[in-house]
């Protein structure tokens, strides 16, 4: 039986232009065989959620390096819920202090990957969430 090809949206909320990490993760996940869409920088929470729903993705990966993660990551989870799309798994990455991670987990961000994380760790996480 062929496994379903998972769809992943890599998104950059907030205003920072540091997209090296986001682009690397997007491309590396594509190389791993996933369908990957990348939003580009400076996306509002609303536009990310809209794209996620339109593109019918299974995952949204958020990248932020400005320090606005505590405000912006939970907002995206909330908006997904409001739009009956809470089945989409949200994870995040960037310059995120360790002590903020429990808060983000509590707000529904399923995993947070900080600098230096090997791509395999992200792949393992994605595969662990496969629900079929």
């Amino acid at each position: 039986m062929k496994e379903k090809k998972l769809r992943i949206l890599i998104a950059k909320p907030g205003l920072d232009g540091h997209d090296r990490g986001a682009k690397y993760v997007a491309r590396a996940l594509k190389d791993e065989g996933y369908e990957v869409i990348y939003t580009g920088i400076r996306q509002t929470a609303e536009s990310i959620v809209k794209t996620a729903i339109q593109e019918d993705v299974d995952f949204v990966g958020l990248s932020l390096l400005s320090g606005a993660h505590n405000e912006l990551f939970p907002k995206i989870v909330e908006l997904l819920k409001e739009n009956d799309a809470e089945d989409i798994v949200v994870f995040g990455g960037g310059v995120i202090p360790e002590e903020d991670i429990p808060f983000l987990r509590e707000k529904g961000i399923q995993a947070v990957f900080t600098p230096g994380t090997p791509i395999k760790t992200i792949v393992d996480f994605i595969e662990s969430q496969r629900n079929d």
Partner: protein
Amino acid sequence: MEEFKKIKKAHDQWEETTVKKVTSRFPERKETFVTGSDIPVERAYYPASFDEEKWNEEIGFPGEYPFTRGVQPTMYRGRFWTMRQYAGFGTAEESNKRYKYLLEQGQTGLSVAFDLPTQIGYDSDDNMSIGEVGKVGVAIDTLKDMEILFDGIPLDKVSTSMTINAPASVLLAMYIAVGEKQGVSRDQLRGTIQNDILKEYIARGTYIFPPEPSMRLITDIFEFCSQEVPKWNTISISGYHIREAGSTAVQEVAFTIADGMEYVNAAVKAGLDVDQFADRLSFFFNAHNDLLEEVAKYRAARRIWAVIMKERFKARSSKSQMLRFHTQTGGSTLTAQQPDNNIVRVAIQTLAAVLGGTQSLHTNSKDEALALPTEDSVRIALRTQQIVAHESGVANTVDPLAGSYYVEELTNKIYHEAMAYIEKIQEMGGMVKAIEKGYVQKEIQDAAYRYQKDVEKGERIVVGVNKFAVKEEAPKDLLKMDPTLREIQIKKLAHIKQERDNEAVRRSLQNLEEAAKRSDVNLMPLIIEAVKGYASLGEICNVLRDVYGEYRESIVL
């Protein structure tokens, strides 16, 4: 010549006998060795591999064309580089305190970090600013914030660098207005605005308007400052962010200089004489870990710029041919793991910048892969510069690595490879065209991807990350921003909007709008007029947004 032939022969013999004897029993660590940017590295360099006959033409002496060895004849024997730590966070009051602290600690110039809403021309009360106010720099909404930021800091005594691009005119206008309030005339102001929009499209992301009007704003500044603020560096053409985005050293040099050429072209097209503005152009480069490659990079960049300015743009003044640059150590080389190791990385990078002849330097703090730096870690970073300056001895002679066979060969290699990129971009019609095609972005991304893959495969070692890792406690004592900052800033702004002469603001914004629609008016005086009446940054940028529209990124993956 005969002498070189003899040396070459001796070299080949050495490879055949002495080297082979060893490598047959003890192979080297790797099949091939490369620099941090993938330039192949030989086992040992020797005189015949570099052309001493071209010494005068390509290397020469410090302070003379083509400036390979430095822009001044005495360099740090005269005066050390400017130690300039990039700082700013939270409110203007807090940043003002940090600046005073840094000046007390022996720093010799200021470098202002603005928050992202300021950099993208949004006021703190804009919806786009949610979560971002005061995070990566100080929040500036109106002239009031700038007055507080420089309170008690005499603007005729410090030089100030401002990392501001799309709204550079507005922040420069505010700085001029603060000067006036302090009784400091425009011709006494010293400093730099980054004002380099092209690398925002390529790598950094804080663009607002499309390329054409952006270039107009920039040439307006060139023209205005050449007449009114003659000591101001009107642009800092930046390779720093290109390198942070993952480019190689060669690409950093090539794309930065190609950007510089685009600005010179635009200014000449707008009717300025090249020698009228070119001596105020400055550059900004990165310093990564491959020490000797970095030194070669700065030397090559100086030579390329001199040749291009002289040959292509016919600059007559030697000041127009000199590439003066600021350096910042490489943020992306810092690791969140074992952060103390970053002190060592920064020390190596500091050496690179100094051996490469930088005019000013920012050293990163050890905790910057985790959060904004604390006061303690900023002090260590500044001390690193002071130790290199006062204790290492490398500042006692100019360009001490000149004549190193390896460094000279690398300098030549970077020179030629970067020139090839520059030619290719010229063939495409210049940098704006190359950016619109996504060519530059794609080249950088491919290099970044290759690098990261090498790290993943363990072919490149990052100490503490993919080798020599340890179990670590989560670091404590990180700098935390007050989450209520935005509220404070919004209140301040509302108050100012009540107090100011709103009719005058309306008129000044309308004048600006009319001028922006024409191409024969310099916008700087109108922007100064608006900021003096306490029109906000967001109001001014919105006027320009309405006239010029906004840039949309072309996504390249």
